[in-house]
């Protein structure tokens, strides 16, 4: 079985940041592997270690900068990577259908049996690409998976979906399928030194739109970010000032007033 893992390099804003136009200033952003995708990579690598997956391929939509993050996924055990980027994607805000068009083209080339990705990206927080991709490529799917047991012979993934309020839904999903992975599914490993060394020799295939048989029309976004701003604080908290000792003393008074004591 071949597993394709969608991996995103996400931007995280520093505690202090400035907004320039409709985005956070580049100098105030740090880039990292999306937390949810880290769990998806781990799930795929575990399937390989269990002898269920023969090959784990990651796919990323992102500029050359993203290769550092992709190497991290390779160092954790993915076999090779595909990185899709094109000037046509630069600067705009890609909608779900655009990303799906790119992933669809990669799925057509790679022909995976299982596609894993994070529930959402930490920066944009759409949580939609995996399920939309499943519809486009005719795969089954399950969103927000926090337990995974693949029975390759039966062609079924037994999953738990994490619903709200401490309830899990137990679902059998026919393969091929796209599963979006929730944090807590497993314990993502740290890359070993050996893994990091090996990752340097693993292939990252860079592809642009024409390599995938697509044109700029296929990735024309229906969405435009028109404004970005810091939400006004609705805080009416009493901020307790002073050094640690003083503020703890004042807080202790508040707590005693509320009747708190051991």
């Amino acid at each position, binding site marked *: 079985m071949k597993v394709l893992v969608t991996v995103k390099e996400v931007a*995280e*804003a520093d*505690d202090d940041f400035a*907004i320039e136009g409709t985005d*956070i200033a580049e100098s105030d952003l740090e880039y990292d592997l999306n937390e949810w995708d880290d769990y998806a990579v781990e799930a795929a690598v575990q399937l390989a270690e269990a002898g269920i997956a023969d090959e784990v391929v990651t796919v990323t939509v992102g500029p050359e900068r993203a290769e550092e993050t992709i190497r991290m996924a390779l160092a954790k055990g993915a076999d090779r990577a595909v990185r899709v980027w094109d000037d046509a994607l630069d600067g705009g*805000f890609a*909608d*779900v*259908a655009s990303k799906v068009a790119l992933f669809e083209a990669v799925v057509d080339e790679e022909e995976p049996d299982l596609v894993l990705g994070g529930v959402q990206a930490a*920066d*944009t*927080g759409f*949580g*939609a690409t995996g*399920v*939309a991709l*499943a*519809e*486009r490529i005719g795969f089954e*799917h*399950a*969103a*927000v998976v926090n337990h995974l047991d693949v029975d390759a012979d039966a062609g079924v993934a037994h999953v738990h*979906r*994490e619903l*709200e*309020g*401490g*309830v899990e*839904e*137990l679902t059998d*999903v026919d393969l091929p399928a796209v599963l979006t992975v929730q*944090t*807590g599914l497993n*314990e993502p490993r740290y890359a070993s030194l050996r893994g990091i060394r090996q990752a340097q020799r693993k292939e990252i295939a860079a592809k642009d739109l024409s390599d995938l048989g697509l044109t700029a029309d296929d990735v024309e976004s*229906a*969405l435009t*970010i*028109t*404004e*970005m*701003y*810091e*939400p006004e*604080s609705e*805080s009416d*908290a*009493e*901020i*307790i000032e002073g050094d*640690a000792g003083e*503020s*703890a003393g004042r*807080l*202790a008074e508040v*707590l005693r007033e*509320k009747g*708190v*004591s*051991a």
Partner: protein
Amino acid sequence: MSVLVAAEHRRGALRDVTYEAITAGRELADARGGDLHVAVIGGDVDGFAEELNREGVDAVHAVEDGEEFDHNAYQAAVSTLADRVDAGAVVLPNSVNGLDYAPALAEDLGAPIVTDAVGIAYDDGLTVTREMYGSKVETTVDVAGDRFVLTVRGGEWPPAEGVGDATVEAAEVDIPESGARVTGFEEVGGGDVDIADADVLVSVGRGIEEEENLELVEELADALGATLSASRPIVDNGWLPKNRQVGQSGKVVTPDVYIAVGISGAVQHVAGMKGSDTIIAINTDPNAPIFDIADYGIVGDLFDVVPELIDEFA
């Protein structure tokens, strides 16, 4: 063009976010001029249809289909009804189940999707307000075209109330056989302690940094006679069991006093504790959203403040 809202229910009850989605849907229908249709799929559809006949709803469509959520059935029913009632806008809850079919529905309809909306405006076209970068910023997003799928965040619109004069009808829809089958449910978070019963909670988040540092907050909980709870990352890391998790996917708690230690206050966490009587936050980041809902705050390092606080009660 009309607006179509799909209801969400679980294990025999409609979920609150359904009524909130109806309010958002009505807002759009008023802005665009058109009727508001509500679809309910599966379960006790007749009983649900009656409950869904709230003020502002023009028509309720009841689609019979099994008891539990089946994303293929929901997608097929909403897609069919969207065409049947000429819906330009489909509004769904931004819930775990909503996100299990809304994106596929959008793909099916060939319409753009915007998820997790916290506000909408309509003037020639749709503009959606939503957060980015982990709630640090808000954005407005313009949506091209006049047909779209929107999922709305829970708690952002008031629930639709009253009794309306909607027509209620059974809708026939071809439902394809599903390749995903619900086999059961599991309640998680049982065990020795029910944090929902506690009067005072000391709740610990990512700011604690290392598992061995948990001792510090355990000591604080002991000193205060409080129960220890946690935000999601602590449970994901396996440092505390799932029954200690406060938030959307964990427990909803309403103690007299909630002390958030090193918790930034992501929306999923806040959903689980905002009903607490008194909220106290200790966090290094003055912009952390936890301070927006706190009654008392200390902007400082928990590793400095917590030991002092323990001493106060020693």
